[in-house]
């Protein structure tokens, strides 16, 4: 039995155990600013708080949508989970086992269970390899003999809708965007992973092709019992595709909950603002006011207290003094938000409204 078969992680712990549990994930990047001489730094060291204390869990077989704008940290979070970059702090538990920690599973085994599809379908493929070679590379890296790896590659190409005789010998530049993304999906599936991270995987595709690829992903999920982390900026697609949604802002999770709760009854001002910023499809009911002013801020040295308070119409004095806690909002404990308005103990109700020049009046 090759290493590939050996490291298959069978389901442990049953359906109640989350497939992936992330706690306290943190990643700060130093900002290098130097003065006239290269070893002299100007001012105190500043940091980009790309991911600042992110906790969440993904249940088996669900699709968790992750939304947020530039600087929110969703892509960095994805790369931290995939261990492409190392976190400063935090733990990852995959189906009850720690990852690459003492006594936990080896990184190579983890890699077999978790795969990622990137946004840029062209950059994700080596221009010098044929599609069949590209897909077969991973299994071969895990010890599968070349002939079997090629056979598996051809079977996967067929599964994603690309005839292997036609597409196996082609190179990346000969395929269209949608076809390339299918190859990327096939490559990710070559390991028979249990969790697939889709980092804006359909964002660069034409809308008509996007629908095809989303349908393919849906089918594959049902067929293989996959779990998805679906990062996207397209709120319509996230609503259709996800079971639960996580909203990020400036390196933190501000709200997480079932998709209908988020879209129907958001409990964080940023979530509401984000949802109302989606352009209207009805010419008789055009958007009249922008929910937020200015651009999403840069996560360098974020402000104390609530990070959204500078742009929030509901901000009060307590928001600057205390950072809000992440609290459950319903009896099932599935919908959480990080806002003082939901926290009876925060003193929000009696706090004075803050004069907020940056919020939309």
């Amino acid at each position, binding site marked *: 039995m090759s290493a590939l078969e050996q490291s298959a992680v069978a389901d442990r712990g049953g359906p109640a155990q989350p497939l992936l549990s992330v706690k306290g994930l943190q990643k700060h990047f130093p900002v290098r600013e130097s003065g006239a001489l290269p070893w002299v730094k100007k001012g105190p060291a500043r940091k980009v708080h790309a991911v600042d204390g992110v906790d969440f869990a993904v249940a088996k077989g669900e699709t968790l949508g992750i939304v947020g704008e530039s600087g929110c940290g969703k892509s960095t979070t994805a790369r931290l989970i995939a261990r492409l970059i190392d976190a400063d702090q935090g733990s990852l538990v995959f189906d009850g086992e720690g990852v690459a920690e003492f006594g936990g599973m080896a990184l190579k085994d983890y890699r077999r269970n978790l795969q990622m599809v990137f946004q840029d379908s062209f950059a994700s493929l080596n221009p010098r390899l044929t599609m069949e070679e590209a897909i077969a590379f991973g299994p071969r890296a895990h010890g599968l003999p070349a002939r079997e790896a090629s056979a598996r590659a051809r079977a996967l190409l067929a599964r994603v809708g690309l005839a292997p005789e036609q597409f196996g010998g082609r190179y990346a530049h000969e395929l269209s965007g*949608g*076809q390339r993304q299918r190859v990327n999906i096939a490559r990710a599936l070559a390991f028979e992973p249990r969790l697939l991270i889709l980092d804006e995987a359909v964002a660069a595709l034409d809308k008509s092709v996007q*629908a095809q690829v989303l349908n393919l992903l849906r089918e594959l999920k049902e067929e293989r019992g996959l779990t998805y982390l679906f990062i996207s900026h397209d709120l*319509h697609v996230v609503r259709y*595709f996800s079971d639960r949604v996580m909203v990020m802002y400036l390196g933190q999770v501000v709200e997480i909950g079932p998709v209908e709760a988020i879209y129907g009854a958001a409990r964080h001002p940023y979530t509401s603002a984000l949802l109302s910023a*989606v352009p209207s499809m009805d010419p008789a009911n055009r958007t009249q006011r922008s929910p937020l002013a200015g651009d999403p801020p840069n996560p360098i040295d974020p402000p104390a207290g609530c990070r959204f308070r500078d742009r929030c119409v509901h901000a009060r004095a307590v928001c600057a003094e205390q950072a809000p806690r992440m609290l459950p909002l319903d009896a099932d404990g599935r919908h959480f938000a990080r806002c003082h308005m939901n926290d009876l103990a925060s003193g929000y109700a009696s706090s004075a409204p803050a004069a907020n020049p940056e919020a939309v009046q």
Partner: protein
Amino acid sequence: MSKPLLSVRDLNVRFHGERNASALNGVSFDLAEGEVLGLLGESGSGKSVTLRTLLKLHPPARTSMSGHIRVGDTDVMALQGRALEQYRGGMASMVFQDPGLAFDPLYTVGEQIVETILAHERIGADAARARALELMERVQIPQARRRLDAYPFEMSGGMRQRAMIALALACRPKLLLADEPTTALDATVQIQVLLLLRELQRELGMSVIFVTHDIGAAVEVSDRLAVMYGGRIVEEGSVADVVQRPAHPYTAGLLASTVVDVPRDQALPAIPGAPPDLAALPPGCAFAPRCAHASAQCREQVPALQAMEGDERHRAACWHALLQPAHA
């Protein structure tokens, strides 16, 4: 009805290179004064090529163009040299998708706006700078006076896009061409820029052509929509008509692909296949290979735009349109 500001007739554009691509095939449309036309389509549809053709931005060595373009009283196809330079920016100007690429990183934003103004009008440098400041304030850039002396890399994405709009409006063009101006922006910034464009257009009475692949964005700013496919216009009409009563199967498919109100447990209605290869367009309707209603006539003859019942300005190029054609 008064004469339209922009009139395009039988525009054909071909690119020559390793392969010859027919980017535009017989495109004709009008744009009235003060009207906003949304140009919708996917990659290879010809929407960006149309805008670039209106400003004659293609490299002449590799491009062959034919047809008529009239803006106001100017015959654009005949423009050359100094007259062409005056036209670009003066009568018609463009807002690009990536403001980071449209600005020169070595000069401040203010300097670039002033340079544009001075290139078109005979006013002093001080007057030009005052006008640049006024423009920056009009596009709602906070602390405009300070930002005038900022470099493009010092501004955020949304602010750069506003600055680019200011640059495009510097010489009060009658026609503004916007090539996917909000595609690269975050959602909350996009809606701000869309509202800004709508406001400015109403205030200044410009005609605007807004190219995008995002139907929502087009609906927010446009009066009329035109859908392009394979280098041709396949449907045009008022926004309400096209979005709520699409006549062309491609438009209907595109609307369905926006994933609004699709029940979660159902497969998405997806148009099979992929956009056509512009170097090898099929003889008949370009959409026929992907269309569920295609017949032999569709594969042999290119359909012409014909008016639909209800509104003669709602037209579709289809032998089996989803609506009844007028006087069929």
